[in-house]
């Protein structure tokens, strides 16, 4: 009822119209999602120049692939290496890079994740099944309404022969949030 009331009122005032509402919903249900981010990661793994541009100016490099819009205006891409692992959170609400990852999963919006990943990132990663050596530094990035982060995961070994499209298949949503690693393809 509350949503109906808002929708009726806003549409009577000419502030929103129902066809525009439907277009937005369809966009986020079918077109905007983690496959976009996976394409960015696969491009960065395949093309060193693109990767350099991506780390230099995430927003611009991501827009080269056509992904831009609400919650993607200011993007920073953080690279995982053998010595650094990055994890993204929004401690205050749910800021998240929609154009590249779609809408956030339920756990990303939950209070336990938002608070615990800051206090004990290694513990949270372990609950996700990710065990990192003590030598790896874990960096936690707190997104906000102005700046959102995308993790560039480590490229798994044994993928030298894969095409960009095949590489994109390997990249999961969670690996771009930092709560998973990209697994090597099953041979």
């Amino acid at each position, binding site marked *: 009822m509350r949503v109906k009331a808002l929708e009726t009122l806003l549409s009577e005032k000419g502030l929103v119209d129902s066809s525009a509402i439907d277009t937005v919903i369809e966009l986020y249900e079918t077109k905007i999602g983690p496959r976009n981010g996976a394409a960015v990661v696969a491009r960065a793994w395949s093309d060193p120049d693109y990767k350099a541009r991506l780390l230099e100016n995430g927003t611009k490099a991501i827009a080269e692939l056509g992904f831009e819009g609400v919650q993607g205006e200011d993007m920073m891409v953080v690279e995982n290496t053998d010595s650094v692992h990055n994890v993204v959170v929004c401690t205050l609400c749910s800021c998240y890079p929609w154009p590249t990852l779609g809408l956030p999963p339920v756990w990303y*919006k939950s209070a336990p994740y938002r608070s615990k990943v800051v206090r004990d990132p290694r513990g949270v990663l372990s609950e996700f099944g990710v065990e990192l050596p003590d030598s790896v530094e874990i960096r936690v990035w707190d997104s906000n*309404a102005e700046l959102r982060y995308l993790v560039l995961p480590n490229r798994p070994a044994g993928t030298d022969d894969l095409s960009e499209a095949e590489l994109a298949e390997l990249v999961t949503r969670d690996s771009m949030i930092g709560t998973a690693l990209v697994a090597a393809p099953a041979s």
Partner: protein
Amino acid sequence: MTEMPDLPWTTSEGPVFKAPWEAAAFAMTVRLHEEKHFTWPEWADHLAAEIADARQRGEPDLGDTYYEHWLNALEKIVVAKGLASHDELGQLKQDWIHSTLATPHGQPIELKRSSRA
């Protein structure tokens, strides 16, 4: 995936929205922002305030009530920005409730307005 007994996260993709009202509340917010009725930081402040309030009330806030916070924030920002008044919203909610109760099950609900034209 290993088991995670005490935390609600799962790595499955799942549906983007659990119910149509969540999708509608989300989409209205995106449209109002696109039409520059508020900035995204203004929106994030409203949403964060709702989430902080839930925390204050001691709610577990496991992410499943997220769109309830979202809807509360949307109602407040719409009123704060003068796009609609608190009274107008309240009246329309009543009208929707009455119209729903007055409609036989299975029939499309037709909104019957009280007082105002």
